[in-house]
Each structure stands twice: as structure tokens, then as C-alpha cells.
């Protein structure tokens, strides 16, 4: 099983859960499996072309997949995947 950390903005799609378990041999597979359990999640993470949206980063064991092999980055049991979108907050300066 792979542990996936769900960021605050996507938690409405996981019933409020900040952490879910999923399987997948690669990041792409994992996203597809996540979408099976939580329909609509893939659309939030990936754009129409299936690429990870530009304001979202995915980390495998705290390494940015852009510096690994992108969405083909292989996954194994026990890995931890974090989905990290930009968040704002502060003041309307």
C-alpha cells in the first residue's frame, strides 16, 4: 500500500481525509486508482492532457517527481506520496 497525503483543497473529495491508501506501480497509476476510489480527484490533479497541473507538485518520499521521472516515477509498497498545490492566505495586500 502507498500512503497518499491529500492537501487541504482536495479533502472535500476524500471525505475530509488528509491521508488515504492506494496502490499503483507509478504515480500515474496511483492517480488513476485514487480516482477510482474518489471520483473527480484526477481532474483536480491533472489537466485535460493528463499532465499534472502546473500549480500542483507531487512528491514521492519527499522528492519532487519533476526531479525523478515525472508521472512515470515508479512506486513501491510503503512509499509516501504527497500532493502539494499552491495555497494563498495572508492579507489582501
Amino acid at each position, binding site marked *: 500500500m502507498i500512503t497518499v497525503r491529500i*492537501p*487541504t*483543497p482536495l479533502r472535500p473529495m476524500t471525505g475530509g481525509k*488528509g491521508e488515504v491508501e492506494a496502490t499503483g506501480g507509478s504515480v500515474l497509476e496511483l492517480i488513476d486508482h485514487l480516482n477510482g476510489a474518489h471520483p473527480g480527484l484526477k481532474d*483536480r490533479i491533472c489537466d485535460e492532457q493528463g499532465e499534472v*497541473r*502546473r*500549480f500542483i*507538485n507531487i*512528491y514521492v518520499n*519527499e*522528492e*519532487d517527481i*519533476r*526531479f525523478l521521472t515525472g508521472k512515470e516515477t515508479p512506486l513501491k509498497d510503503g512509499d509516501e506520496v*504527497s500532493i*502539494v*498545490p*499552491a*495555497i*494563498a*492566505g*495572508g*492579507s*489582501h*495586500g
Partner: protein
Amino acid sequence: MSFTEDQITRYSRHILLPEVGGKGQKKISQAKVFVVGAGGLGSPVALYLAAAGIGTIGLIDSDVVDMSNLQRQVLHHTPDVGRSKVLSAKAKIQAINPDVKVETHEARFTAENALELITPYDIVIDGVDNFPAKFLINDACYFADKPLVHGGILRFEGRVFSIIPKKSACYRCIFKEPPPPGLVPSCQEAGIIGVVAGIIGTIQATEALKIILGIGQPLTDRILDFDAQKTAFREIKTKRNPKCKLCGDNPEITKLFEHEQEVCQLRTPGTVGVT
């Protein structure tokens, strides 16, 4: 410059630290920090930097204090509702520490005024609530070569990291562009536990002091993420992106601009976003 008796007493707990000492306190007293946004993040930043004895604090915010701000924007008190945020902030800073010079700008931070505003300062603090402004601050700090301490908050989550332009990953290296409206809530519908602003803002203030003092390891090339529900900090490694449109090998951004899209689509006149 030398310290008066009162100042030595005021800053004695700093001066006692071998890493600070009288020399470090002098650096703090000569430092100039520009805080964009006098809201949730700007409040703890400005209060702690004022207490620490920062020489000059610059503040920009175009808003007035709203009742809904008071839950987290601790610079502003109940009688300040309706008052300009920067003027309210200035009064509190001066009450804490009259040594601090406060420069206020009751305006928006824009592509036109950004460079002129930050140039006189040593460090910039991002305390704004919207993505276009966050990208603008990042880009301005890159062009003006100013260290930037970024902060972001949402619901029970906060995030903070420092950027040393041309040396460490910038905001654009990590998040290439603002999310389209609606995908990442940042407004009144999302909510925020007020104290998360305090936690992230005080870390931003700590980072500013460390950068001024040149001590410790700056929070660069790593994102510190705080989850208040778990009371857990998590660190995510990052690095400069050679494809970054701003600071990468083939930059495409050569001047300041504002991303047009406003994330706060739900903002209606008379309401104030979660800041």
C-alpha cells in the same frame, strides 16, 4: 550607533545569545524589512519584528480593518474596525517599540510600484492572500535581488519557506503559475484557524531575523508544511528548477507583470477574504 541603557535592557535577552550579542542586535536595529499585507501573516511578523527592534518596517495594505479580521489579525483591535490597516498596524508597532521606524503605504502592491517599494529594504515578507500577488512579490524580489520569506495558510494548514534569489528555489520554481479560479479556495468560503496565521507568521519573522543575523540554516530549498489538526510539521525538499520561467536557464519573464486572474471570484463588494 550605540545603544542607550534602556535599549540594552530591552534587547538584553537577544544580546545574551552568543549568536546575536551586541553586534547582532546592531544588525537587527539597522535592518529594513518590507511586509506585504498587514493581515493574518503580516500581524505576527510585524509584532515580533517590532519587538525584536528591527530598524525599519515597511508595510503595504490597501484594506481597512473589518470585524471578521479580528479573529486572526492580531495587529488590529476591536476599536480599529473601519480604520486603515497600515495605520492601525503602525500604532501597535510604535506602542511595542518606539525605536522602530514604520513606513506605511495604503495601497495595493502592483507591478508598477513593486520595485520602487522594495528596493530600499533588505528582506521582503509575503503576507498576501492571493496568488497573483504572491507571484508578483516573488518576481519583484528576484529582479531586486531581495531575500523573500513566503508564507501561505488555508484552513488548518500553513506553509513557509525562504527564497534567496538566484541561489535557492523561488516560488515560481515550485508552483509555476497561479491555479485557475475555483480550484484552490483562498477566500471566505475556505476558512482558517486564526492561530495558524500566527504559527506561520512567527516562523516567517524568525527566518527574517536569521537572514539578518546570518545565523543557522535558512529555510531555503525546503518547504515547511504545518498541519494543525495533527500538530505535525513536514519538510519537503525542493530545488531550483532549471526550467523556471523566472530564474531558470532560459528565463521568459524579463519584467514584472500581474497575473490577471483573481482567485477570489467569490469575493463580493463589502466582504473581506480570508487573510
